């Protein structure tokens, strides 16, 4: 009797109520499908853009700046979690890309931060971005503006 009580209690305890809060599990984003894109935006406001770049050189290269004629200011940013658990972003001044390595900018991680847009960005527009690498020099990309990704 005593054993069965203990056993039942244990089962009940572990079966639980099924409403445990779920927090931040890793997620493979659907937006991985389209890798080069920019977010719509309003003139004077911000937008973000994403791309992938594979270093074709036989040695490491470093991304040192980014420029877009469509924003007053452009930077590479990284979204991260602060020590006390807040979401934030910070500028990445340099990113080293090893030979054959692919640099991936995607939602929730690295992004091109387009600040103070000169014009609205809507679907069917595209954003021109010039990446400056120490070895490969200037790499120009055209990123289509996509909505509701």
């Amino acid at each position, binding site marked *: *009797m*005593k054993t069965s*009580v203990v056993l*039942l*209690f244990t089962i*009940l305890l572990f079966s639980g*109520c099924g*409403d445990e*809060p*779920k*927090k*931040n*599990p*890793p*997620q493979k984003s659907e937006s991985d499908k389209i890798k080069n894109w920019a*977010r*719509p*935006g*309003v003139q004077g*406001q*911000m*937008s*973000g853009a994403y791309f992938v770049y594979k270093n074709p050189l036989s040695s490491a290269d470093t991304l040192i700046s980014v420029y877009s004629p469509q924003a*007053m*200011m452009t930077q590479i*940013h990284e*979204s991260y*979690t*602060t020590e006390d*658990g*807040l*979401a*934030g*972003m*910070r500028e990445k001044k340099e990113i080293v890309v090893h030979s054959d390595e692919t640099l991936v900018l995607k*939602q*929730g991680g690295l*992004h091109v*931060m*387009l*600040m*103070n847009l000169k014009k609205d960005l809507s679907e069917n527009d595209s954003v021109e971005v010039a990446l400056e690498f120490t070895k490969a020099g200037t790499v120009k990309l055209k990123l289509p503006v996509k*909505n*509701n*990704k």
Partner: protein
Amino acid sequence: MKSQFLSFICILFIFFTSCNTGPKVIDDLSDKSFNVINQNGESVTFPDDYQGKYVVVGFIYTNCPDICPLVTQNLIKVQKEFNSPDDIQFLGITFDPKRDTPEVLKNYKGLFNLDDNFDFLTADSTTISELMDSVRVRSQVSFTQVREDDKEVYFMNHSDKIMVLDKKSRVIFEYGGSMTPVNYIVEDLKTVRK
């Protein structure tokens, strides 16, 4: 023997009463009342005006082009999963009222092609900080950037959160806002909504 039987009944009782109350109430906002403004400049009382509906709330600021749109998009995906139901209201509330005026929020909403059951709310700074305190959303200016036109822009560190209120304005679910799989939110809503 008798006492063992009694303790068994006790345990069963505790187990079933603790499970039949539905989801745990995390915060009761029913006694709170915040005068806020939506993206159309209309006065809204939060959460009072949404009582009788489930409310899915994301916390955002519009100068955040990476994490915050993920929060907004998660709300949109939930809304789509339920086929834009009338009994679920979707809200994005800004913790940056200084810059996120109703007009800015209207433009922001416009970027996502959203319907009437999706509102963005702002208020004066005092009201917003009281509101954020009551739902335990923290935010602080992280760094300031001087733009090429000499204007200053600032960025914020902030809680990344989505929460669900029941029809009585009680917070019953909370999630990480940007990275939570949408089906977690959908499944939770389904269990309380049936």
